[in-house]
């Protein structure tokens, strides 16, 4: 029997017990160890199930044409398309949770049964989601300016970033990354 992930012979036979039915997974040693280190519900066969969950959810809600349009939707901050996310099961930046909110929320409810965080909150650095996004964008523009050797523009952007960081941090703390 061949490994489900690569061409090597499958020597590990894992029974995944997280779903409704036990699922047999056949992997080579390398792929098996990788699989076992991963979070339940993600990674390899699990990742496929995340994609499957999404596909199912979308099929119900959208026509093929709408889905095609949705797949082309790209985050303005990191550039990831919805298609890429659907395929890889990984998001591109924190802003994706805002930008793709209407597509992601049903998925998150499906996984967690909830949409509201009840755990701990950062104590020191309370920064709004919008300013986090703004900072990623500014940093990206700054790197681009450096790449194009527009050093004046880059240093302007650096000042803007610094000001934004300082305005939101608690007084006396200059250590935000």
């Amino acid at each position, binding site marked *: 029997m061949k490994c489900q992930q690569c061409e090597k012979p499958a020597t590990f036979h894992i029974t995944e017990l997280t779903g409704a039915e036990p699922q047999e997974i056949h992997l080579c040693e390398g792929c098996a*160890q990788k699989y076992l280190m991963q979070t339940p519900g993600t990674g390899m066969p699990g990742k496929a199930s995340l994609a499957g969950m999404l596909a199912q959810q979308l099929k119900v809600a959208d026509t093929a044409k709408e889905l095609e349009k949705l797949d082309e939707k790209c985050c303005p901050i990191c550039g990831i398309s919805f298609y890429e996310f659907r395929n890889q099961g990984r998001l591109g930046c924190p802003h994706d949770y805002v930008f793709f909110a209407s597509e992601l929320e049903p998925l998150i409810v499906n996984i967690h049964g909830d949409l509201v965080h009840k755990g*701990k909150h950062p*104590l020191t650095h309370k920064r709004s989601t919008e300013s986090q996004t703004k900072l990623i964008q500014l940093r990206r523009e700054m790197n681009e300016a450096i790449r194009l050797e527009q050093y004046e523009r880059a240093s302007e952007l650096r000042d803007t970033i610094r000001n934004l960081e300082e305005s939101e941090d608690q007084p006396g703390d200059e250590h935000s990354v």
Partner: protein
Amino acid sequence: MNVDLNELTGRAGEWMKGAGPQSDIVISSRIRLARNIAEFPFIRRCTAADRAAIDKAVRDRLAEVPQLTDLAYLRVDELSDVDRHFLAERQLISRELVEAEGARSVAIDQNERLSLMINEEDHLRIQVMKSGFDLVAAWDQINEVDDLLETKLTYAFHEKLGYLTACPTNVGTGMRVSVMLHLPALVITQQIEKVFRSLQKINLAVRGLYGEGSQAMGDFYQISNQITLGRSEIELRNQVHDVVPMIIDYERRARDFLLKQNQQDLHDKISRAYGILRTAQTISSEETMHLLSSVRMGVNLGLIDDLVIADINKLFVDTQPAHLQKLRGGPLDTAGRNSERALYLRRYLSQKEKDGADQN
């Protein structure tokens, strides 16, 4: 602080110690937190320069936390392949970090309880590992480390969704609580399926590891929380924490039952396993795991007295491919590893037998 990986080879990491509460059945308790730095894209959309900047930023900030100054830093991308796998076999880094690309690091504390992975699936993965059943201590430690880091780093956090992670399966607390259990008697008495079914009902993930032909391999099972959002960290921890004693109790009862009903068969199975490990000339890692599992139960039940649990845990780790190559001091192919593994087992076990005889 620098770390000498060759020195680690001779040492037993935290989870190998076979110490801590209920360590006859619970191998280890582990908690992991996933965190991302607010101002960078998630790893998949990072440029090589972004990755290097994240790696540097996290390391620089960590160095400013006095409580974390004795951590050893390793640039994982600068290590040899064997060394990377060696760290993974000790469970200090994940397979994902072994195989990732670009700048990435791990910070490890002296006793191998705490490890911080930089640029894994998320920018930062904090992991605390304890031997035996000790989730309360694991949570206290990881929460403290997280609070300390949070004074230096701005995490990606959403008012409603909590800590933002690259995969939506981790969003919210970013917390995964896992307990590794050794359940050979539940496997022999065929009660294991029943236990799994009841765990699934309460949203816990169970993973079993099987060998060729669906034969239980090592009889190890990992139980962890599936959801990370909508419950507090303490609630998530307690969900796993509360169920483990019940499983321990089932396993103990199954062991008692086997001893009463079938001591001779059980003793035979365990002695044969021990015999093969002591005499084999070549042995695969799969067979080794399977046999060590029987011997481990034999030690717990007092049917083998040359060994203690820490020996068995050490053998599980040392007989893995990268450990064997580190111990041998050179590369080995599969056939070479199989005979090196057998040699290692014969030497180790005959030494223990001799030590035992000397004491008597």
